[in-house]
């Protein structure tokens, strides 16, 4: 089947406004979902679930959250990890303090709590932008981690703020195996990704992008800057909050405030830079890339060195990793700010016109 738009004439605006207007995209996404839900659970092993697939989905969700804020609404944030921390600790506390609360409610409430905190730390965006805003979100990053360490109430008085998450149960059903957790995470991420896709193709998304591209023109057109920016912070933090809750409950099982450091925020930021700012797909591509590259290098580099007969140490692997990341991030920032998603799109455009390039 060729990938092309030609010949697919839309007879109504409704058809043109579908989630994925091009048939091949639609089929591709459905196929991917079918594989993720129906095939992967039966073929993947435990290692794949707990070391690759689950973290990939969770980081995709966090990257998606940051992408809504930074890529779509144009508000740079370095506080993603802190909002994940809020989500993780909020879910823990809801489970702890409300008896028998179904886990999905805890996750949703965790997201809402993070959204509230996000709005609070989004307030500076009403007066400052760009670099200065990034510094303000940095304050959020340090303040939140400090709070979670400083006040023992948040971690139910455990030492140094470490929390061990409760069982993941929903209406009496316990999600214990990595496969079950994978399916739970996959479901949540799918639903939230679809919601994000809907948001960005509606007037909410257009308002965000308008504010990003030209805020004076946006307000002249009738967009109220304050609610629009704060909504972006709220929704973004909601996504990061849910990601944080999943990170604690379905991936690590036990977390401490320092685990949500600035490092983690930067990781999420790199994901959207490499994956593509202002692209839902890019959030997933970026997460996959950043998570998989180290694994790939771990395997490939020693093998390559062996084949070439060069001496090799583990330190070299990590050095090469850092070098490669740095180079790639600079490449994408300078050459292709729309990241892998844009490269993918260019490839599709080429394919669409093939064999008659113009």
């Amino acid at each position: 089947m060729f990938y092309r738009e030609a010949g697919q004439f839309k007879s109504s605006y409704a058809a043109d406004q579908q989630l994925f207007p091009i048939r091949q995209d639609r089929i591709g996404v459905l196929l991917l979902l079918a594989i993720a839900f129906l095939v992967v659970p039966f073929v993947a092993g435990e290692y794949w679930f707990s070391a690759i697939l689950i973290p990939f989905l969770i980081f995709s969700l966090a990257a998606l959250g940051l992408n809504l804020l930074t890529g779509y609404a144009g508000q740079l944030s370095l506080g993603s990890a802190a909002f994940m921390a809020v989500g993780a600790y909020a879910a823990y506390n809801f489970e702890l303090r409300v008896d028998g609360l179904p886990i999905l409610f805890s996750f949703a409430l965790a997201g809402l709590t993070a959204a509230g905190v996000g709005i609070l730390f989004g307030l500076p965006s009403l007066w400052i932008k760009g670099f200065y805003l990034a510094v303000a979100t940095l304050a959020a990053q340090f303040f939140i981690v400090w709070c979670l360490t400083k006040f023992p109430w948040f971690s139910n008085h455990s030492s140094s703020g470490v929390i061990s998450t409760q069982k993941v149960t929903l209406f009496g059903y316990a999600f214990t195996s990595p496969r079950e957790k994978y399916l739970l995470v996959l479901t949540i991420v799918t639903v939230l990704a679809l919601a994000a896709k809907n948001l960005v193709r509606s007037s909410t998304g257009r308002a965000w992008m308008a504010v990003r591209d030209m805020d004076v023109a946006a307000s002249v057109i009738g967009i109220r800057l304050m609610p629009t920016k704060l909504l972006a912070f709220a929704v973004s933090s909601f996504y990061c909050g849910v990601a944080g809750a999943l990170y604690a409950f379905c991936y690590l099982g036990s977390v401490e405030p320092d685990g949500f450091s600035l490092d983690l925020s930067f990781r999420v930021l790199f994901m959207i830079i490499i994956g593509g700012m202002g692209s839902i797909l890019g959030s997933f591509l970026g997460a996959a890339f950043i998570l998989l590259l180290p694994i790939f290098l771990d395997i490939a580099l020693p093998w390559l060195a062996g084949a070439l007969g060069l001496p090799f140490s583990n330190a070299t692997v990590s050095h090469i990793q850092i070098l490669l990341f740095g180079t790639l991030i600079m490449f994408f920032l300078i050459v292709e700010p729309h990241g892998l998603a844009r490269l993918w799109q260019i490839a599709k455009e080429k394919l669409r016109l093939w064999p008659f390039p113009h």
Partner: protein
Amino acid sequence: MSKTIGDVILDLQNISLRFGGVKALTDISFDVREHEIRAIIGPNGAGKSSMLNVINGVYHPQEGIIIFRGRERKKMEPHQAATQGIARTFQNIALFKGMTVLDNLMTGRITRMKTRFFEHALWWGRAQREELEHRKKVEEVIDFLEIQHIRKTPVSRLPYGLQKRVELGRALAAEPSMLLLDEPMAGMNVEEKQDMCRFILDVNDQLGTTIVLIEHDMGVVMDISDRVVVLDYGKKIGDGVPEEVKNNPEVIKAYLGASH
């Protein structure tokens, strides 16, 4: 022309605007009548753009009264002007660069959209219906401006002349009752100018939209406007129908003295 010019809908009285020590506007009064094309002309730096910015709330004058549709206006924000039916284009194109032509125009309808973000997230009944309804309206504007072929093109890839047209489209998509145009024909070639003139006249004629127009091309101004106000160094030096203004000695002096 078949149109009938109505009552005064915008009355500016003794407007003064300063930026620090710079007096952009000094004690300016003029009015705009319903359905008319009102031009603002003047040499570079005369304060024309500032005047538009005062009208739609981007700048707040230190002195003066603005009466819009019979009501004295308090200090207000641009988005409030938009909800009152005032739309505009900018001297330096201010499109949303990362978005397609279609999305830029759809954004123009934002004040008319009622659904909220949680409905958007679910994309259920009402949100979807609303999107369709507004899409239809936007397609009318697209047809009117003859830009069907670039609907899905990101605006940053368009040539200058088309970008100007798209920006007009975004303003028209709002179905404004008053349209402020800041040099809509600057930098265009003759054909593009003619097209733009035609669009402006059609909008004014068919939809009855009141238009306040800043333009440097005197031929165009004298041709299409009903009344002209002339600014120089932030002061008003002439006001009246094109014939009057053309023969106003002060205006002639300002233009001969100006370097362009």
